[in-house]
């Protein structure tokens, strides 16, 4: 038996995941924790809909309702959607470019643990005196007046997880720039890799303004600064600018990887090369570029003046052009294809009309005068749920089905998958379509109840019923996952049979070194080319079998993140006179953080080599080991 394959106990597996620097395991960690937060955010959504089910409902108090809407938005954006997408990026992108790992495996692990501790910190607010209650946008004038520590949990928790995301973004950028296999030119990269690239660039440039804004919030609330305190000369609009300079690119950070997943699905299940690959790539870059020019369309009613509003309105409308290019490219990819309606493809086809509906209402809101009417109404709620759920969440569900076999080596049930799709899809439109009309009828967002005489009862009841359908869909999906895992029917390299890109050329799940030999990429859809030419070996290789250099695992990322977690408690209670220990906790936490950084810096970490003989033996057994050393 080779040294690569070892049976391990539960404790050893947990320790392995705590110290892993393998991008595929980190992807699983992202998927599990992101999925966990997705369920929490989903329960919060259900509570909101139960409260709004009928007029004058007293299921939730007004204060608790504010906490729940705030945490629902924050959780879904920062702790569910983004981590799950980062999970797919981690799992798939290195495989698609023929790399053995990401550029900075250690930082990859650090990014995950920072996100994880940030998310835990934020959610601890529920048990430690109340959650944030100023909305996920946390406008300063409201947030500074909020009592208790909820807002402090928000500011510190998002700071921690934001660092993690930033690190992840840099890591993916460097991986794509430096570690593509021979022959993998930029214009041969699969669309999912391209969207990962552009989304990572957006992360790189969009997260610093958020971090700065959050720091201002922390200093104002916990250390007595006056950035947003008007009577001390501060200005609350600064928060809005910083938040939306981050916040609008954030929308594209979410939707671009979703576009990438759907692009892969359209090509695979239409069994056709993507129509207009080049146009799709440039549309992706353009969307990323324009994403930074439009933030003030969230602030039309602030009073920036007609000139600013007109400029931002025009810039916003321009974004519809590259997005439209993408829609038509997808449609023309399906056109004339040999279509197979597997679960991922059903999601992809349903995504197009749903997302277009969200896009059209987006262009409506770009018209500044009309936005004065729509602002802060349920029309806005309907719009952004159409793009986020109709785009991002459908992509996450589709991507889970598509990449499950590659990540876990088993195939989710098609039958249950279709049930999930139909219940979720019907529930989604039922919940949010009608909210457009609630908005037009004048129902404002973020109110905890409404009167029976306002005529909003029926539409709200329908909306709440739709939410139940979505919940059923998600529950069926969880059942599907459990059944699939218990049955444990293993699949081969290319379970969808029509895989086009490199990740489908290797075993499912891939061995921890991904590629025993680095492949040679001979064109776009490189694996498809080999299949069409009848290559029995799978791929053409760029190197003979030889020793492979791999990075060592490390517990330090977890310790560093824990240090920030501890320090945050010190900062959180800093202004409470009853707690004299805060400064000590702050210093201890930072000492843990910087101590671990110093240890990382001083201790050489050269990695290890997998011997050629082990690789050959491994290949004989199908290359399906998960051993780490």
């Amino acid at each position, binding site marked *: 038996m080779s040294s690569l394959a070892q049976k391990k106990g539960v404790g050893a597996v947990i320790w392995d995941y705590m110290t892993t620097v393998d991008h595929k395991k980190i992807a699983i960690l992202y998927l599990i924790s992101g999925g966990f937060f997705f369920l929490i955010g989903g329960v919060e959504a259900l509570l909101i809909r139960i409260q709004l089910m009928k007029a004058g409902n007293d299921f939730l108090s007004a204060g608790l309702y504010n906490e729940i809407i705030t945490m629902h938005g924050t959780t879904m954006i920062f702790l569910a959607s983004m981590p799950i997408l980062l999970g797919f990026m981690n799992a798939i992108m290195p495989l698609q470019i023929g790399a053995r790992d990401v*550029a*900075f495996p250690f930082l990859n692990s650090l990014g995950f643990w920072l996100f994880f501790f940030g998310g835990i910190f934020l959610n601890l607010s529920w048990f430690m005196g109340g959650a944030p209650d100023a909305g996920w946008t946390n406008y300063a004038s409201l947030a500074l007046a909020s009592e208790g520590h909820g807002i402090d949990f928000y500011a510190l928790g998002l700071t921690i997880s934001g660092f993690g995301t*930033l690190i992840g973004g*840099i*890591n993916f*950028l*460097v991986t794509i*720039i*430096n*570690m593509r296999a021979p022959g993998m030119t930029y214009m041969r990269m699969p669309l999912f890799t391209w969207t990962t690239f552009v989304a990572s660039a957006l992360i*790189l*440039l969009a*997260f*610093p*303004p958020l*971090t*700065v*804004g959050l*720091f*201002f919030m922390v*200093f*104002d609330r916990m*250390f*007595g*600064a*006056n*950035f947003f*305190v008007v*009577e*001390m*000369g*501060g*200005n609350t609009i*600064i928060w809005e600018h*910083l938040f939306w*300079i981050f916040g609008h690119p954030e929308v594209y950070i979410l939707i671009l990887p979703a576009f990438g997943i759907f692009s892969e699905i359209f090509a695979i299940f239409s069994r056709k090369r993507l129509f207009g690959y080049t146009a799709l790539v440039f549309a992706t870059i353009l969307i990323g570029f324009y994403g930074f020019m439009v933030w003030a369309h969230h602030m039309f009613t602030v009073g920036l003046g007609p000139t600013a509003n007109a400029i931002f309105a025009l810039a916003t409308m321009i974004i519809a052009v590259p997005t439209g290019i993408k829609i038509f490219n997808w449609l023309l990819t399906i056109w004339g294809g040999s279509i197979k309606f597997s679960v991922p493809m059903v999601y992809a086809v349903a995504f197009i009309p749903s997302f277009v509906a969200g896009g059209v209402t987006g262009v409506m809101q770009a018209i500044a005068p009309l936005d004065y009417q729509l602002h802060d109404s349920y029309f806005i709620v309907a719009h952004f749920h159409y793009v986020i759920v109709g785009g991002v969440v459908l992509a996450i569900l589709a991507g889970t089905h598509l990449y499950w076999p590659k990540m876990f080596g088993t195939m989710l049930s098609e039958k249950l998958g279709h049930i999930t799709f139909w219940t979720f899809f019907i529930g989604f439109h039922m919940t949010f379509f009608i909210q457009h009309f609630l908005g037009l009828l004048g129902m404002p967002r973020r109110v905890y109840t409404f009167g029976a005489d306002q005529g909003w009862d029926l539409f709200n009841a329908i909306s709440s019923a739709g939410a139940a359908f979505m919940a059923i869909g998600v529950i069926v999906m969880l059942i599907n996952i459990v059944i699939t895992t218990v049955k444990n029917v293993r699949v081969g390299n290319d379970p969808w049979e029509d895989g086009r890109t490199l990740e489908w050329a290797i075993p499912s799940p891939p061995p921890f070194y991904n590629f025993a030999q680095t492949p040679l990429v001979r064109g776009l859809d490189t694996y498809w080319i080999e299949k069409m030419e009848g290559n029995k070996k799978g791929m053409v290789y760029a190197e003979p079998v030889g020793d492979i250099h791999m990075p060592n695992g490390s517990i330090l990322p977890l310790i560093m993140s824990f240090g920030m977690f501890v320090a945050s408690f010190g900062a959180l209670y800093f202004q409470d006179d009853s707690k004299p220990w805060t400064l000590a906790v702050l210093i201890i936490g930072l000492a843990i953080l910087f101590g671990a950084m*110093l240890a990382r*810096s*001083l201790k*050489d970490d*050269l990695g290890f080599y997998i011997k050629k003989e082990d690789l050959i033996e491994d290949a004989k057994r199908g290359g399906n080991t998960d051993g780490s050393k």
Partner: protein
Amino acid sequence: MDLNKRYTAQSWPDHPETATLEGKNKFVGFWLLLAAETITFASLFATYLALRDRGPSGMEFSSSGLFELPLVFAMTMILLTSSLTSVYAIHHMKNHNFKAMQAWLGITVLLGLTFLGLEIYEFNHYVHLGFGYTNSAFSAAFYTLVGTHGAHVLFGLCWFIALMVRNSKRGLNMYNAPKFYLAALYWHFIDVVWVFIFTVVYLMGAIS
């Protein structure tokens, strides 16, 4: 990577910082990090410009009267010189002259420490004038912008010292050459930010 491999000035590559894949990754990744840092400081500058001279009614401080320009000029010259000495250090790193590199890094650290000491003195002076962190939006924006820069200087100094101490016995190799290079790159970035602080905060403050 073999740490025991011995290099001479002849066998040492022209660009040791990017001679390995790890080095290349660090090089690109660090430039990207500097892009993020640039946005961070841009946000801080924008906030400072929006909140400059803003405070509670009757605030006696303004950017035209508060700052000690001669002191700040001396700090600027010291930091600019330290950037030059770090260039010398990297020049010797590329020539595989470890001792000269350590010497120039030592001078860089001394200059950086002097700068930091003067900055602490400067802040202390302003606080004694009554310009405390919590007194106004102006003071918060000023101390946060300049203080964030100061924190970067402190971090850069710790980084230099850690590298110098860690490698003092074993000299240069392919593993630590990129680290020295990046620390110097970081130091240049800090210097560029200071040039902007000197211009936007101090000089533009004096003529406003």
